[in-house]
């Protein structure tokens, strides 16, 4: 059957000018709507502004920022702009430090969310003939229900397999003819490992074609490896639970940046220290203003995620801005001896070594008032019986890491399986054992 390449052609192919004027109109509306929450009324009066001061996107910088701390301090319902009787669902993130955060949804919010995910899935080639399997956890984790409703909106047959039990996931993939799979990257690798151990050839024995990966920062090399292993095209998904979850931004088939739906969101990239916008195309913290949300609109929300805007037009015909692959979180950043290091930099270097597996662990310690960094890497198999070659490998890893991150780590080679990711959890990449003064 012939389908349009777009799920929502008029919106997805809007020109930059059309997007901008739609955003200005939506912004005026959302700012007025925010006055239904005590939280924003107070923020506005502190800044001495009223909704009338916001006439277009150009006035965005007059608005206050919203942070994760604001959500925690106003837990659970302090930022809601509609009565609770109009809300139909809430999602909550785990609260490892302090209160968790809560996001409320009206029925319209859920419909909009499903449409955003449906656009993303359609964009990477999913059609009603496809079978979609979701290996994300259902429940409070937004990637479960988020992908579920989006995939149903596309009209696919959905398999809500949920997280874990890899052998059963593989059985579903084979028996139900799954063509589109959603998994976090470390779990996609795990599925491949188990397939290999069970003698399942992903190309010969399955119909897998499209893989949606998100939630964990990963490098281009890791994507390529997963694509080759599973014989699929893998597309990056960006979601953030405070916005709703998956569906915020997604790669198109050009695999060069993630389109963010600008009828839903206004994007800013700022310097996290000065809070000023960075020059176009430079790396900074992603700040998002929601334009459609009813239950809990957020103004200038600081995501802590680091990215940059990719300049120029995308050949896919969508003019919605493209974000570069997420570079980790501004709060994932390691500061060692005054140098800023992101775990993804380490991962990128390690993936350049054929002898190594994909898992690694960074440990930061304070030894005799000197901060040290140890990087443990897994040997895929023993490629030599000569320990001098292992030492040479260790030296080469150290050298290339130092070139990338500018400090010299201690590299330890460990047997495979030592650092393996568990089925459901995101892989732990960093342990900071330094005392905080």
């Amino acid at each position: 059957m012939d389908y349009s390449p777009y799920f929502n052609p008029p919106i997805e192919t809007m020109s930059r000018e059309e997007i901008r004027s739609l955003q200005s109109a939506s912004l005026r509306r959302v700012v007025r709507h925010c006055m239904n929450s005590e939280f924003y009324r107070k923020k506005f009066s502190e800044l001495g502004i009223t909704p009338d001061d916001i006439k277009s996107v150009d006035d965005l910088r007059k608005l206050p920022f919203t942070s994760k701390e604001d959500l925690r301090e106003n837990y659970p319902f302090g930022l809601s702009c509609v009565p609770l009787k109009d809300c139909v669902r809430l999602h909550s993130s785990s609260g490892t430090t302090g209160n968790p955060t809560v996001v409320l949804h009206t029925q319209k919010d859920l419909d909009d969310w499903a449409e955003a995910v449906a656009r993303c899935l359609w964009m990477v080639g999913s059609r009603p003939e496809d079978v979609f399997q979701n290996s994300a956890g259902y429940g409070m984790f937004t990637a479960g229900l988020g992908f579920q409703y989006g995939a149903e909106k596309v009209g696919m047959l959905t398999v809500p397999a949920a997280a874990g039990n890899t052998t059963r996931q593989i059985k579903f993939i084979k028996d139900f003819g799954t063509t589109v799979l959603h998994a976090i990257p470390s779990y996609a690798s795990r599925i491949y490992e188990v397939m290999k151990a069970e003698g399942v050839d992903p190309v010969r024995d399955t119909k897998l074609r499209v893989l949606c990966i998100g939630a964990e920062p990963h490098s281009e090399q890791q994507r390529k490896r997963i694509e080759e292993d599973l014989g699929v095209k893998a597309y990056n998904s960006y979601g953030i639970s405070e916005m709703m979850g998956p569906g915020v931004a997604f790669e198109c088939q050009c695999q060069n940046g993630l389109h963010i739906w600008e009828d839903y969101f206004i994007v800013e990239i700022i310097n996290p220290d000065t809070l000023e916008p960075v020059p176009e195309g430079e790396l900074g913290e992603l700040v998002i203003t929601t334009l459609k949300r009813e239950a809990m609109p957020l103004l200038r929300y600081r995501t802590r995620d680091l990215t940059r805007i990719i300049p120029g037009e995308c050949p896919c015909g969508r003019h919605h801005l493209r974000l570069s692959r997420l570079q980790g979180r501004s709060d994932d950043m390691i500061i060692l001896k005054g140098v800023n290091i992101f775990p993804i930099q380490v991962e990128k270097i390690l993936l350049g070594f054929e002898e190594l597996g994909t898992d690694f662990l960074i440990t930061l310690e304070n030894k005799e008032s000197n901060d040290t960094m140890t990087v443990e890497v897994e040997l895929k198999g023993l490629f030599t019986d000569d320990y001098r070659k292992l030492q040479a490998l260790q030296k080469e890893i150290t050298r290339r890491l130092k070139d990338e991150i500018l400090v010299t780590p201690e590299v330890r080679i460990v047997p495979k399986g030592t650092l393996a990711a568990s089925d459901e959890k995101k892989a732990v990449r960093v342990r900071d054992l330094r005392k905080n003064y």
Partner: protein
Amino acid sequence: MTINQLSIFLENRSGTLTKVLDIFKENNIQIIASTIADTAEYGILRIICSDPQKAYSELEKGGIAVALSDVFAIELDNKPGQAADTIKLFSNKDISIIYMYSFLFHGKGILVFRTDNTDEAREVILKSKLHSVTGKELADWE
């Protein structure tokens, strides 16, 4: 002329050697000779055993980083001077020994070694009519 040697990657942590040796025990494989080359963080355990193929697949199954390689194993009379005379045959041809260890087998000394030039070493062994122990003999270790 060569026999199978297992090389096993070990982390310097208590328990790692036990895990490996237990796999030999559970599969009733006799370790005939072994040696460890160690650095500060890890070691390589080299083993000559009665059934290297089976040991290899069982170790792999157990998630152990292991390699199977061919090494020379020359049989010498069990008396002083034999090792010196034998190694001289190689050094005369500028062939270096990378590592070497020995064990006693049915009253004979067995010299296990790897050189930096396998092809030339092979020729030396053929020309000098050195006698090698075979994997089959080792399998009948009793």
